[in-house]
Structures are given as structure tokens and as C-alpha cells.
């Protein structure tokens, strides 16, 4: 038994307080406020909310959550493909987070309630196991390059013929370009996701830094990782010399995991495609190469998405601000639906579905309420 979270090295609040102070001093010394930085990872936002870190960030620093939740950026037509397949009677296996993402005519959870077979799995290997019975099983695959590597590994390990993949996998580096180039973007630095960089290596961001002249710091997911990463990022902003810095050296190298990269690119290729609420992202989608057509659900099945379109999209969706929220332009409290028509029970936008979605996280953890003022008597 240990107290939470003090015993773990990277959750030590004493060192956290020291880092928070260092961050405040450096942010103040920039002499202008607020300075905006963006992280592009749902796991970062999850940790920030989970540990109440926003309370430790200085007012001079605005830490914005970018399009870093793979579930949230899964586009409506991709969800529609999965729902259509499920309604056609094909068994679908997917991650729990994907179940409630609304498409044009409901979510996979809705399809399941009407009798479709939808299984929640913890990983792609489990989905492939389901197909060993000989029944057709389609794995609706979401996630960034980290998760895509797992999908690739299964496809390279002689999966059963009745198994196939409906890929909604996405690739993070191109969307950082989109955000950096957005008109009026005030992002002065990026905090990059440590787990993705474990695969790609931090070198993958060098071209981005050279082109956009903003620093990138790769950071891990424990509270001290995030604080240390932000300290480094503000230092780089102050120095005015944009570069990539690795604040997660216990896991990330410059070149990354070459074996994993080889498998990733052996199975997947880059394609342009829409990210929900964001934009068309050139090279933003990971799609199966032709050599893997036998396991590509889009090539194996006639997916009748048109049949779904009889159901008009709910009017509420038009008011959904997930896109602006993911682009860091708006916050959940700017959305009229947040916490009213749109709740984790009955989500309108995908950001309210995933545990990595900004709206879900704000709904669960209370966003930014100022809880510091509440005093105990003792």
C-alpha cells in the first residue's frame, strides 16, 4: 500500500512544486503574457486534469490542448463505415472509447443496442483471436502511430483469413503543421507526446521546427515529466532558438524504435483525409497498403454507408464546437451544448466521448474551477 501519488518518483509533489516555481519564474521573465503553448496528446490532457496540474501552471502560460485525441478526430464517415458494417451483420471489434462516438446515424453502441454484434477489446490481438473461430471479424482501428504499430504487428503475424481491419489510424506530425499554419495561430511552442516519439524518435520533429521556427519538446506523462517539459519549452521560447528537445530521455531516442517503424511502414501508407472538426490533413491518415488488401475491410466488404443517410444528422451536431476546441481556439465553456445537451451519457461531439477528449475530461474533472481558494478549518 502506498499513498497516492507521493511514493512514485515522477509523482513527487515536492519536486513538482519546485518545477512549478521554476516554470513560473521563466514564464514571467518572458515579459509578455499570456504565452501560448500546445500539447497534442490526450494522455497529456488526461494527466494534467487528473493531477490538477493546471492549478500549478503560471497565469502567464496558456497550455492549450490540441488535436491529440485519436477517438475525437475520427471523422464521421469513418464512424459511419463501422456502423454500416455492423448493421450489415458483420461482427465489429473496437476499443471501448470508440463505442459511443456518434456518426451520421448513431454510434456503434446504438447499433449494438439494436442487435449488431460489437465487441470491446483491449487490443488488436484480441480482435484477431475472435476471428480464429472462422467468423468474419472487423477490427475498427483508431489511434495514432503508437497504436498503429500494434495493428501492423498483428497483420504481419499471419492473422486468420476471417480477420480484417477498418483503419481510422492517424499520423500526428502533419496535423502539427496544420495547427502551426492556422491563421492567427498564437502557438509559440509544442509539447509532443512521449509515447508516439518512442516509436518515431524525436528526430521526426526536426523538419517541422526548421520550417515553422517554433520549438518542440518531447515529454512523458507523469506530472513531473509534464512540468519539466514545459520548463524546457519556455526556456527554448526565451532563447529564441527553435529546436527539438527531448525531455523524456528514459524512453525516447533520436531515431526511435526502428524495428517498429519498419513494421509500421511495411503495412501502412500515408493518405490525406479529414480529421473530425479540424481540416483535411494531407498525409494525416494511415491506410493499409495494397499488399494487405486481403485484410482491408474497405476492400473485403461492400460498405453501404448510403443506407445510413436516410437518417438526417441531428440538428444539435451543427452547434458542436469540438473542432474549435481541438484546434485550441475555443474552450468547452464556449460551447452552448457543453454539460447541457452534451454529456458523457449522451454525447453530441466526439470530444465528450473519449477519456482523452477535452470536453469529457473537463466534464469529469470540472475544467478549470478555481478550487485553490477553498480553505479547510484546520
Amino acid at each position, binding site marked *: 500500500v502506498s499513498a497516492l501519488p507521493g511514493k512514485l518518483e515522477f509523482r513527487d509533489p515536492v519536486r513538482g512544486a519546485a518545477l*512549478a516555481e521554476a516554470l513560473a519564474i521563466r514564464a514571467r521573465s518572458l515579459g509578455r503574457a499570456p504565452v501560448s503553448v500546445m500539447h497534442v496528446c490526450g494522455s497529456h490532457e488526461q494527466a494534467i486534469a487528473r493531477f490538477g496540474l493546471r492549478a500549478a501552471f503560471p497565469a502567464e502560460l496558456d497550455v492549450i490542448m490540441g488535436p491529440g485525441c485519436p477517438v475525437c478526430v475520427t471523422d464521421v464517415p469513418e464512424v459511419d463505415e463501422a456502423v454500416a458494417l455492423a448493421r450489415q451483420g458483420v461482427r465489429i471489434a473496437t476499443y471501448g*472509447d470508440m463505442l459511443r462516438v456518434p456518426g451520421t446515424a448513431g454510434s456503434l453502441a446504438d447499433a449494438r443496442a439494436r442487435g449488431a454484434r460489437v465487441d470491446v477489446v483491449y487490443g488488436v490481438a484480441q480482435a484477431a483471436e475472435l476471428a480464429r473461430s472462422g467468423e468474419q471479424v472487423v477490427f475498427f482501428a483508431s489511434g495514432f502511430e503508437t497504436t498503429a504499430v500494434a495493428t501492423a504487428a498483428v497483420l504481419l503475424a499471419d492473422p486468420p483469413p476471417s480477420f480484417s481491419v477498418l483503419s481510422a489510424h492517424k499520423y500526428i506530425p502533419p496535423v502539427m503543421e496544420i495547427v502551426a499554419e492556422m491563421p492567427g495561430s498564437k502557438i509559440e511552442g509544442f509539447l509532443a507526446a512521449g509515447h508516439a516519439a518512442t516509436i518515431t524518435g524525436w528526430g521526426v520533429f526536426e523538419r517541422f521546427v526548421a520550417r515553422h521556427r517554433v520549438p518542440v519538446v518531447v515529454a512523458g506523462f507523469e506530472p513531473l515529466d509534464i512540468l519539466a517539459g514545459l520548463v524546457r519549452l519556455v526556456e527554448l521560447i526565451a532563447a529564441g532558438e527553435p529546436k527539438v528537445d527531448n525531455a523524456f530521455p528514459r524512453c525516447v531516442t533520436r531515431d526511435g524504435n526502428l524495428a517498429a517503424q519498419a513494421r509500421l511502414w511495411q503495412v501502412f501508407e500515408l493518405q490525406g483525409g479529414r480529421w473530425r472538426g479540424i481540416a483535411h490533413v494531407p498525409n494525416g491518415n494511415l491506410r493499409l497498403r495494397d499488399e494487405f488488401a486481403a485484410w482491408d475491410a474497405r476492400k473485403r466488404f461492400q460498405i453501404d454507408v448510403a443506407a445510413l443517410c436516410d437518417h438526417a444528422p441531428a440538428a444539435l451536431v451543427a452547434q458542436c464546437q469540438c473542432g474549435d476546441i481541438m484546434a485550441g481556439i475555443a474552450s468547452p465553456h464556449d460551447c452552448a451544448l457543453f454539460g447541457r445537451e452534451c454529456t458523457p451519457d449522451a454525447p453530441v461531439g466526439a470530444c465528450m466521448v473519449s477519456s482523452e477528449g477535452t470536453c469529457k475530461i473537463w466534464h469529469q474533472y*470540472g475544467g478549470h474551477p478555481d478550487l485553490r481558494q477553498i480553505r479547510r478549518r484546520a
Partner: protein
Amino acid sequence: MNDRRHIEERITLKYGAGGGAMRALIEQIFAPGFGEVAGGVGLAAMDDGAALPIGPDRWLVITTDAHVVQPAVFPGGDIGRLAVCGTVNDLAMMGATEPLALTCAAILEDGFPRSELEQIWASIRAACGEAGTTIVTGDTKVMRRGELDRIALTTTGVALTSRVVTDRGLAPGDRILVTGTMGDHGLAILATRGELALETQLVSDVAPLNGLVRRALAAGGDGVVAMKDPTRGGLASALHEMAGKSGVGIVLDERAVPVRDEVRAAGELLGIDPLLVANEGKAVIGVRAAAADRVLDALRSHPLGRQAAVVGECVAERPGSVIADTGFGRRLLGEAEGELLPRIC
């Protein structure tokens, strides 16, 4: 709590998850027409049980629980032990620590193995022995195959008490205690289910708490002002309910909440917070500040309370909210919404 959320046309799993949806279901569908009990605690209070006044300073406490668990036998217990402990504990949470007797109704699916039934009834006998109670009547039904998932048990318990403790007696300044580690039962069950393919040493904490609570009440007297067992929905739901009904905010010192390392690890792996999952052998106790040390010492002197800890304090601000202090900052502690689903990564 007055949860006015809309009840949908179909009752789905979330209405049984122990959170706000379930409270709304009870308030809007089950409770209307069954009002208060004068001088006692009725259905409208939505407490762990009811208290019917039967004389000066004398109440009959009654509670009932239906039990379904998949799998029926799990590390640390089985559905039989769960049924006895759940009912004994609900009585204890009302301040009634001497259960007179229990009833037990069993519904079985056609083809249920006799050996497993005998094993379950052996553990019912053992748990009754530990709690100092007995089964005095029951009922048996067998359903056709497919009409039931193997076995369901319903237990009702009665006890007499000279003092009723509700779940709504908190005031600003009161301390919140837990009697031990959080999340053991819920994560043990989740880890046991085949689909996670997780091998762990996790063991359910299912145990009768009446002896432990008796000791706390003896030490704290009137200083013990509220009790609840953090079953479905875990510590988060128990604290929300206590805060809402009492009209206080609760500041939870998250670092003080005891959680086993293996439970924490399994929770991180599955993306499930141990504070949101069920406990079956733990209590949350609200005490006046002056009584906190006495009650804590009493709890720790009992084998089931060795890991007891003071984990929070009640405040006047933000009534109904639970504010978790992480050591880095503060956040609101949310309740579980619907099924607990694994995260993608």
C-alpha cells in the same frame, strides 16, 4: 439529491452503475408514493437501509440486496459471501451492528452444478459465522436455460439499534475516514474476467464490517455522524452522495487514500480509477474533528481496519462537490458514468 435527469425509454446498464443515473431512476420511478418514515428513515432517504421506530430510542433496521456477479466465484470470495456481507454491511452503515437474522432467496439457471452451489452455501455459512448472524428463511426458483445468467441471490437483513447513523449527517469541519484500501473488489473482478487476459494477484476485500463498525461507534459515540459503504461507484459515488445529502463540500486528500500497489497498477493499465470501483469490505465514516483520532485508533485496532486513514474534510463551499487535492493542485472528483470502459491507450 433531486437528480432531475431524464430517464430514457429503455433502462440500460448505466442505471445500475451506482451513480447519478441510478439515483434518478430510484427517485423518479421507484420512490414516488413511498414517502418518509416518521421518526425513522424510509425509501425517500435512499440510504443504505430503512429504520422503523419501534419504541423510545429503538429502531428496527431493515435492508435488502440483490446480488449478481460474473464470475460467481472470484479471488477472495464468491457470490454467497458477497450476499451475506453486502446485507450485514448495509445494516452496519445504519448503525445496526447486531444483525438478528437474514433471509436468502436463490434463483438458479437450469443446469447449475450442485458442487458449486454447495461451495457457495459453505461460504454463506462461514460469512454468517463471522458476522454473528444466521439465515432464517428463504426462497428457491429455477429458471430455464438462458433466462438467467447462472445465479442470483437476494438477501434481506434485520437488526435492532438504539442509534441510527445516516449518510447525511456531515457538517463543515468533519473528518472523512476510510477503513482500508480502496478499489480491491472492483479491480479483482475486472481482472478476473477473461477478456482482459490479465494475470494478477488481486483479491476482493469482501468481508462483514459489523464488528469493525461496532468498535468505531464505541470509540466515537455521537462523534460518528455519517456512514456509507463505498460499493458500486466506489469512493467517488459514496462521497458524492454523502456530500450532496449533507449539503457540504468534501476536500479529499488523494495522497492519503490507501490503495494497494497492485490495484493502482491494474487501474493504470486498464485506465480505470480505483476510486470509481466497488469495495465490499470497506466503510466511509464521517466524524466530528474532536473524535477523529479516537475513531481512527479504534479502527486500526481491528484486523479489518489496519489500513484505516483520515482522507478528507468537509467544507461549507461547493456543497455536493468532491474536490480532490492531488498534491499538485485540485480537481473535482467525478463519478463513474455508465459502464466502465477501457481506454484506447
